[in-house]
């Protein structure tokens, strides 16, 4: 397991438990994340992608709770049940094994500290500072990777940098302790197009060179087409389809995947080639009994309304949760 994969979600269900109701943000999710490469979780806002992946850092915020299943991380010393980590072990696991570039991460930098101090603090408390010289060299390496001028950035405060620079600082920050897995949550949403492309080119290069695994969370189909190796399409807390990027885009099997791709405007598509997905985004407080996408699906049948399709392997490496595929057996 640990050879090919870096982490596994096993039948994971996450609820936000409130006084009167509870919301099922993630519903029975199972997936093995390939070691190396970029795996993308794509879905609309509220599809549960951030909640699901946060479980890898024990980062689900209250009142969210894993009510069933677990997340496993395959470390150097064997399997780690992430939810069972505590105290010092958890502290070291976070950032040394798995780190994250947050959405709007530009505001996660401390405005009162220089970049150098923030990096130093983190490295120091993880025992990663052997000597000042070695640390400085590491900084140089990191900033070189994200193409930032170390002399300009190290003494700078966050407000002295542009959004694109801060985002690259955050990427360097996530790589500081040489983690095996980095979660990128909408890493370029607030940035201009040219900067966006540039950052992704750097990320892809880093991904290959360091052999680190990236988990990319995004709603942007274009970015998935550009950067991802494997794609999990999420809808209302469930994975609808999982495949390598070429198969997913080439076959467009699941009706939701097809809808998502066909509803994405592109500079090379004219209006007649683009059709929106009918209906409204799902209300997770009030999901239908059968397939969550059923109410918006053009091929919805009686069976889809009655029974939720399970994620099944349709072809090697290609998983689909849809009654249209996968034979008769449920």
């Amino acid at each position: 397991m640990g050879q090919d994969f870096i982490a596994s979600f096993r039948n994971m269900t996450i609820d936000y438990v409130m006084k009167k109701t509870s919301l099922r943000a993630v519903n029975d999710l199972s997936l093995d994340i390939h070691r190396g490469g970029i795996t993308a979780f794509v879905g609309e806002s509220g599809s549960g992608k951030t909640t699901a992946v946060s479980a890898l850092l024990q980062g689900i915020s209250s009142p969210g709770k894993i009510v069933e299943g677990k997340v496993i991380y395959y470390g150097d010393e064997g399997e780690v049940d992430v939810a069972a980590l505590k105290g010092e072990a958890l502290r070291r696991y976070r950032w040394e094994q798995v780190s994250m570039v947050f959405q709007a991460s530009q505001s996660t930098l401390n405005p009162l500290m220089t970049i150098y101090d923030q990096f130093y603090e983190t490295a120091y408390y993880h025992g990663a500072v052997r000597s000042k010289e070695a640390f400085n060299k590491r900084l140089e390496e990191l900033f070189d990777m994200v193409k930032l001028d170390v002399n300009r950035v190290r003494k700078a405060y966050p407000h002295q940098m542009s959004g694109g620079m801060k985002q690259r600082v955050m990427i360097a920050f996530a790589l500081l302790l040489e983690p095996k897995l980095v979660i990128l949550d909408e890493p370029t949403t607030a940035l201009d197009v040219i900067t966006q492309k540039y950052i992704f080119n750097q990320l892809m290069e880093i991904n290959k060179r360091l052999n680190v695994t990236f988990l990319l969370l995004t709603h942007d189909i274009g970015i998935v087409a550009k950067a991802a190796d494997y794609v999990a399409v999420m809808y209302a807390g469930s994975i609808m389809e999982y495949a390598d990027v070429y198969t997913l885009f080439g076959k467009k099997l699941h009706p939701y995947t097809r809808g998502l791709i066909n509803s994405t405007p592109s500079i090379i598509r004219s209006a007649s080639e683009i059709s929106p997905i009918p209906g409204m985004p799902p209300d997770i407080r009030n999901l239908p009994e059968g397939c969550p996408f059923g109410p918006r699906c053009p091929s919805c049948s009686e069976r889809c309304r009655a029974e939720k399709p399970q994620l099944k392997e349709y072809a090697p490496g290609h998983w689909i949760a849809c009654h249209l595929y996968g034979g008769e057996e449920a």
Partner: protein
Amino acid sequence: MKILEIEKLNMVFTTRGLNSAERVHVLRDIDLEIEQGEIMALVGESGCGKTTLGKIITGLLDPTSGTIKFNGNDIASRNKKQKREYRKSVQFIQQDSYAALNPVKKIYSSLYTPIKANNRKLKRAQIDALIVKYLEMVGLTPASLFLEKFPHQLSGGQRQRVLIARVLSLEPKLIVADEPISMIDVSLRLSILQLLIELNQKLGLTIVYITHDLSTVKYVVGEGRMAVMYLGEIVEYGKVKDVILQPVHPYTQALISSVSIPDPVIERNKPMIRLKSMEIPDIRHRCEGCGFTDRCLYADDACAAWKLENTYTEEHIVRCKNVQAIPPYAVLGEEKHE
């Protein structure tokens, strides 16, 4: 017929520092013509001046120099009545629908006030009927569900529709839509754009669509025209199919090549355009000549001092000194991928 003609428009903001005043030249020699009934896209990255230009078009800002003609009349020489008429005919849809609606007023009064202010003689019942008509025109049906709501009770897409209804209630001729979809949910974006297209087709409304999202331009504008802005200038202007499929200005080429295409085969095989620097320079330190000089691979010593002028063809305007020397760029290479 041309509904709007802008000529040699310049805008200089004066900012006051602690002990000095600074002049920032944010729009430089803008020439733009908008035909009656067209949708035109104004595209650029943050800080290029596209919103400022939109505000000038709607009369929210007065330009420092240059002329603007609306239906053939120079708007600088208008009297009070004409000014009022212009303000009514040219309307602005803001980017942030939450900030654009008064949070303590119900949707009903947000729509009532502008109609009343412009039609003093209308009776309450007539205005009520108009409000319902416009809410239903933008797809908020039944209207009665929305009249008594406060802005925070609506979704982003619904608020955006309210803004559009409010603008329509003044029966404008020209609408400037400033990033109308950037703050709403991805899956609802297409429907707001569809609404704009519908209004253009049904009511013959002229629309200036301001956006940073190039992917949506072709969808909204179709066969129409687009202008690409960079640091206060329109660097390229022409039919969408020319500008997107055969961009000429080095900046447009870089911009178009950066837009990701939702198809991994095309996306990963398309030609790349390199730039000397990734950062957009500070507009305060922009040189007098071509603003793209610092980042452009084809720039020479004379570019920074070049007197800006429009070149290339009549239909496809490019502001670049070396326009003849720029190698062509095509997203799709030779043939269109199906």
